[in-house]
């Protein structure tokens, strides 16, 4: 479920610029004037003289000074000298690996541009300090032209760690096309880096790229329709198990949220809308829909449909997942198609019969009366199994017999 919307940059309303934002911008201004990379260790301090001209400004700029030092060097924010730092992380190189990953610029998913191959060629690996990071130079395709060094640093990561415990589902792979690694003199002591990429979905293939210090250039198999490089999530297994918990919680609590103001306003508005000229004119007509055997009910707005056919297809889509599971548990998995066929026509029923409860509390077959009359009297809906509906839907049973 997506929160209200993804809010693209809009011009109107309050500007999101921050009072302090300027101090970050100034970094780029100076970046253009000076060599891109300076020394790493303690290099931050070395730049202080550059800033001294503005040292006389008040504290606002001085806090900006702090900001400048950080970004000016292209130091990762995670490498600030006073922070506990990534290196303190108990998981040694793995965390570095993952954090460095945020600096990578891989190709767009699904893009197969061959130029990218050259971008991936590694130059000779420098002695890379873990703290060194690279200013991200925007380039076409969003590929950082310095990324090759990042990959080299990947060599240090101990890719062997990525070999175990890869989950089947979670790995998603970005760059298609060829990956070529040419790492010479890797200083990690690991002569081989292995990038194991499993593909999302049911392909289940393992694509292994190995990187020899001799500089061979393996290529990634191209058959796979999907994507990129999995950056060593050795906790992916764990992630599988945890992922269901957040979703369940989300449903329970009612996130994505509505703002309280909106909630309150709509509450009042809905009340007043109900009486207009003495006739009720509700905006939406929500009724519960239950289905035998389903773990929870759904609600539909009858006003969004204008025919029985529309209602039937919508309910079909909504409840299809339950029938598939039922099929799957009893029969062989490849029979999902059966589930669809079973659902072909809820109203005229094959295995299921659609019924509704009217104002008098009686359970009626859906489809007998004109649509407008139906939505006025319908209080709730129920999808019954055909076998339960004997007596309730004689027509349905006849039809299904005829179809079968």
């Amino acid at each position, binding site marked *: *479920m*997506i*929160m*209200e*919307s*993804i809010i*693209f940059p809009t011009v109107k309303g*309050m*500007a*999101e*610029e*921050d*009072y302090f*934002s*300027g*101090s970050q*911008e100034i970094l780029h201004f100076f970046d253009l004037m000076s060599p891109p990379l300076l020394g790493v260790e303690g290099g931050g301090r070395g730049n202080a003289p550059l800033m001294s001209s*503005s040292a006389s400004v*008040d504290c*606002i*700029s001085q*806090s900006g000074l702090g*900001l400048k030092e*950080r*970004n000016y060097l292209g130091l990762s*924010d995670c490498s600030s000298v006073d*922070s506990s730092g990534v290196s303190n*992380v108990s998981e040694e190189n793995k965390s570095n690996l*993952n954090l460095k*990953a*945020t600096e990578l610029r891989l190709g*767009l998913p699904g893009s197969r541009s061959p130029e990218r191959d050259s971008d991936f060629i590694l130059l000779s690996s420098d002695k890379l300090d873990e703290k060194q990071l690279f200013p991200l130079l925007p380039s076409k395709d*969003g590929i950082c032209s310095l990324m090759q060094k990042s990959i080299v640093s990947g060599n240090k990561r101990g890719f062997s760690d990525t070999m175990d415990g890869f989950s089947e589902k*979670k790995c998603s792979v970005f760059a298609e096309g060829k990956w070529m690694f040419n790492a010479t003199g890797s200083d990690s002591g690991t002569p081989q880096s292995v990038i194991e990429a499993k593909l*999302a979905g049911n392909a289940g293939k393992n694509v292994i790229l190995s990187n020899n210090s001799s500089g061979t250039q393996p290529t990634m198999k191209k058959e796979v329709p999907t994507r990129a490089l999995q950056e060593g*999530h050795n*906790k992916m297994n764990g992630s599988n198990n945890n992922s269901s918990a*957040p979703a369940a919680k*989300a449903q329970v609590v009612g*996130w*994505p*949220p*509505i*703002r309280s*103001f*909106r909630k309150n*306003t*709509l*509450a009042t*508005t*809905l009340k007043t809308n109900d009486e*207009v*000229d003495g006739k009720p*004119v*509700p*905006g*939406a007509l929500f009724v519960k829909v239950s289905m035998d055997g389903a773990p929870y009910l759904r609600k539909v*707005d009858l*006003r969004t449909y204008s025919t029985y056919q529309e209602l039937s297809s919508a309910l079909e*889509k909504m409840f299809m997942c339950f029938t598939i599971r039922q099929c799957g548990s009893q029969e062989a998995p490849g029979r999902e198609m059966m589930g669809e066929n079973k659902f072909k026509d809820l109203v005229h029923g094959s295995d299921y019969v659609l019924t509704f409860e009217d104002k008098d509390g009686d359970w009626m077959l859906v489809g007998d009366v004109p649509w407008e009359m139906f939505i006025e009297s319908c209080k709730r809906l129920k999808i019954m199994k055909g076998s339960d509906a004997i007596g309730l839907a004689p027509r349905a049973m006849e039809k299904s017999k005829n179809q079968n």
Partner: protein
Amino acid sequence: MINYFPEEVLEQVFSFLTSHRDRNVVSLVCKSWYNVERFSRGKVFIGNCYAISPERLISRFPRVRSLTLKGKPHFADFNLVPRDWGGYVYPWIEAMAKGCTNLEELRLKRMSVSDESLQLIAKSFPNFKSLVLVSCEGFTTDGLAAVASNCRFLRELDLQENEVEDRRGQWLSCFPDSCTSLASLNFACLEGEVNLAALERLVARCRNLKSLRLNHAVTPDILQKILALAPQLVDLGAGSFVHDPESEIYNKLKNVMQKCSSIRSLSGFLDVNARCLPAIYPICTNLTSLNLSYAPGIYNKELVKIIRKCKKLQCLWILDTIGDKGLSVVASTCKELQELRVFPSDRNGVGNAAITGEGLVAISAVTMQPLDEGFGAIVQSCKGLKRLSVSGLLTDQVFLYIGMYAEQLEMLSIAFAGNSDKGMMYVLNGCKKLKKLEIRDSPFGNKALLADTGKYETMQSLWMSSCKVTFGACKTLAEKMPRLNVEIINEGDEMEGGPDDRQSVEKMYLYRTLVGPRKDAPDSVWTL
């Protein structure tokens, strides 16, 4: 060479700089530029009212004319922040009243505004022109009356989504007859009655009125009179749109609306009889902005009919009663659409069946796969993305993508997502322009919090609630970073003896500041 530029010339050049960022940059070049800039800066934006004090603002920018202030954390919109948390505007008004009386514009968001503040504004700033309050609370219509009575040159009074106690007073009639300068009036969020005759007279004498948003107390018969008086309106928010479509009044409304050819933006319809809606069809063709998100009374068929006529629409806010089919009508009709927001119509936010979703949601629901790839694709393709909210079935992977690709991202909201500290660390490490990060109910803990404490000084604020951060880690962070205020919001009653360091913190809000811990925090908020 720069030194030989006379300051007047510099000032003239700087007067073309309107963006805050440009001006901030310029002021860092040298001392002389800093001084010229600071005396010429008229508009100041402060994203967090506790990051700096009003006195320092005034001493640096003595000639500020327009001030924008934001107070409470964004999650206050969803009731996650206690009502008495803070964000009081009074100290700012007080300071400005002493040191900077040429204030003309005040824009406040999520602040606590008292009637005293409004009265002080009304008394202290002779040139006051514009008051915009968004999602604020704490004031009543008495405060509005003070502003209406005393601000002789008031051009704009814009109240958006505020909680206002309606004292059934006569605030509208407090606009003196001599007030003819109003160009924008928005009181849609007021719940009470207004003096309709006074409203008519006000509209009649304000010939520059361009934007008018009414509350539900303004009925169609008044609306048609107002529109007859103000055919120059560009932005209209209808209040109540309920009437007998057979009546004479409705006829008049239809006729007068046909003449309102300047209207480009339409909103409201807080109460609506759908059969009256055809009256707006003539103006649909020119609309660039349509907000029907507060109009649950318009159901699907009518919505679609309206949208089919709005071919020039650029901005559409709508309820999810529009349904999938309705959205495809939007797609095929509104070729110039730039912004689309779909709001849930069910009060509890639980989705109904109307929007089943192509796209991310549908895939996830059917396959039970995480939404990582979908959001990953979004942050990759939308290179200018500045703000993103994610929730749903999401693992650390999505945060890896966000860290890698969302280069321009400034604000990120996370709920019920992620698997481990890595998720948060990806974001903190990768999003260089990140300003605001707000997280709830996600498994991020101390390691992520403390991995890069320096990062928080580059950001405006961080909110974490129902995560795995402990009290001890927050204390460590606060000790290490004196220029951050680390606030623990504790609404329970565990105050006695102080919490254990190993205890999880329910709500933490930290932000950078130049002025140290604030003095107006309630008992439930501790600054470490």
